[in-house]
């Protein structure tokens, strides 16, 4: 009896090993780059981590195929390397001799990719499912583009500035024309005074009637 059970177990495990192999048409290869992602805080890959992986994959399968109770034993892993890469296949919970096809597995992983990544503190790049492209994150589109807001603020300020300056210059001119008749007499006197002082800084020196030197030689 014991021999038969042993033989069946060996057969079963042998069968399982046979189906899980590199380039299997039913499974995928996984590559983890833990050191690249976490640097000094990298954890060591051991059997417990593998158990977590199989559990999270079972979780993904459960989410995708509603009703079917996948267990950790349904996820079969093989060809583990030092890279930390391995192949896996998924067996159906109802009949362990049947494998779940690739499309379903892929869809399940796609659906729960984020959760699987978070379980290992990794990203789409560092937890790589070979041949499964990550779904691209859509960038957040703002209802009003931010650049228009900045543009509005800047142009509002500049426009207000222009209006203020134009209005102030108009007001200044009005004040000048109102105050001019009174100031004219004062201006004439001051102008005469400056000419008398010989201070001709604001005038144009007419060179044609003067000799070379501005001041007569001693």
């Amino acid at each position, binding site marked *: 009896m014991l021999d038969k059970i042993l033989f069946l177990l060996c057969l079963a495990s042998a069968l399982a090993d046979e189906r899980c192999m590199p380039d299997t048409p039913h499974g995928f290869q996984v590559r983890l*780059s833990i050191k690249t992602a976490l640097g000094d805080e990298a954890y060591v890959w051991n059997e417990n981590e593998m158990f977590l992986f199989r559990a999270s994959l079972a979780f993904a399968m459960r989410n995708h195929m509603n009703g079917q109770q996948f267990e950790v034993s349904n996820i079969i892993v093989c060809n583990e390397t030092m890279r930390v890469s391995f192949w896996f296949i998924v067996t159906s919970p109802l009949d362990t001799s049947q494998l779940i096809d690739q499309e379903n597995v892929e869809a399940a992983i796609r659906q729960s990719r984020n959760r699987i990544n978070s379980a290992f503190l990794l990203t789409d790049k560092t937890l790589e499912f070979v041949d499964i492209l990550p779904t691209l994150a859509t960038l957040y589109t703002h209802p009003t583009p931010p*650049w228009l*807001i900045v543009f509005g603020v800047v142009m509002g300020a500049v426009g207000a500035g222009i209006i203020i300056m134009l209005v102030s210059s108009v007001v200044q001119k009005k004040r000048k024309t109102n105050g001019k008749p009174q100031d004219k007499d004062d201006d004439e006197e001051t102008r005469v005074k400056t000419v008398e002082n010989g201070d001709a800084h604001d005038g144009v020196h007419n060179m044609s009637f003067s000799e070379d030197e501005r001041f007569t030689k001693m």
Partner: protein
Amino acid sequence: ILEREERPKWDNKAQYLLTCIGFAVGLGNVWRFPYLCQIYGGGAFLIPYLIALVFEGLPLLYLELAIGQRLRLGSVGVWNSISPLLGGLGIASSIVSLLVSLFYNTILAWVLWYFFHSFQNPLPWSSCPLNVNRTGYNVECEKSTPVDYFWYRETLNITDDIEISGSLQWWMVLCLVSAWFIVYICAIKGIDSIGKAVYVTSTFPYLVLTIFLIYALTLPGATDGLVYLFTPEWSTLLNPQVWLDAATQIFFSLSVAFGGLIAFSSYNTERNNCERDAVLVGVINSATSLYASIPVFSILGFKANNAFLSCINENILALTNEFEMPDQNITVDNYDHWVNYLNQTYPDQFSKVPLNDGCDRQKFLDESVSGTGLAFIAFTEAVIAMPGSQVWAILFFVMLFSLGLSSMFGNMEGVLTPIRDLKVLPKWLPDEIFTAIVFILCCAVALIFALGSGNYWVEVFNSYVGSVPLLIIALFELIGVIYIRGMKTFSDDIYFMTGRRPNIFWKACWMVISPLLLLVVFIFYVAVQARKHPTYPAWNPDYVDFPKTETKSYPDWVFAIIVLLCSVPVIPIPLVAIYRLIRRIMRRSSHHADSNPYNNYAFEG
């Protein structure tokens, strides 16, 4: 009582100096000089550059500032005063200033666009947008880079040929109008407002450059960039092209022959030491170029380092995956050792690995960029990799905007001051409205640069308006002041203004060295340009070698426009001279006829 016209004047000397420095120091100091240093053997380029500054730049600068301050008129008035035959020179300067303003402000509009977009997290040029059905990234963006895509597609929406004009890009029109508005508010009251604006626009770039200098020097890879920049390659000095480029760079960098410097110095008091001003402005301009090239090259070194690291890391990943080695066994440091070992031990397997052979630090450093490529592609890419990207982007674009704005003041004053001095305007038209009208007209014409092919047109204007006409104008300026007005009269002018006559160095430069240099530069420049049919790089997504730009040659009608752009500014010089000559001859002949008192026409047959 004489009706004295109040010519506006500077509030203080500092305003005048800051305005001149701001006019001279522009975008070219940041994105053209470092590029020239890079391609012409680093530190060795400084020699022809400084020689050109001393023998060509400073004399021209001194000449313009002196003549403007002495005759107290804008460029048109100054040349009319020296000789009526030279009147066309001022008109030529004004036309060049006008044409340059048009495309220069477009560059400022681009800077504004990037500035507005720097307030987002993440920066919009850091990643590609998704394609229509969200299955992958946009094809054009994937083949090139997100930074290229943002510049060519989202900013310019560039067409693939200059003949295809495309449509007006509404966002570009908005930015263009904003740029013209901002220049207007600073120039609204002439030098009263410009003088105050330059306190900020001329000093702020130095602050930002210093901040960038300190930060950039802390970035990894910065020292590689600096070593690369300043290592002199003395053999480049034997190449005449280097000397030519040094002379043209100094010439365009100092913004002479635009008429703007003459306008600014005409608002000075009469007794102002313009010799010291000229030397100060010239030296500060060159010093700024040098100072700016340090952070620019630190950042380019950082960028090259990043490119190198990502290239190596790709290779490391490929090797690690193929040989199933533990993660991070191969690092950047032991990469070469591992490559050798694996190649020797497992040659067959090794040859299957797709390795990128081009991971060479030197190759990434050799990628030289200048102009808009430096600011909007290289720099924006570097900024993404810096922590706190938004801050650096905002600082950088505000700095570029200040640099360009202060140059725009000079350009526009070179147009406005002569018109004001000609007194062709009705008295009832306030100055502000006149300025507004000019600005609105300029903005309307500049809308061609907001088309899909706008960037190509900016290149056309940049290469042909801002080059040959300026050389011709500067040559005529030298001849006009030194030979037509006379060295003696000009020395008297300077003695009047500064209290001493120009020394032998200035005289030698003005009379012989500078005109000779300019003539040589002009001849070589035209010869180099005329040698080949002009081409331009087009961004064509359907090109075979995309993302490389496709070199297309200008169609004939564009070539005709180029010829027009080179010749229209300089045509007034001979035209006005001929016109005045004819008038003088006719007046003399009619004067002769009238002055004979014995000629009684009544009895002639």
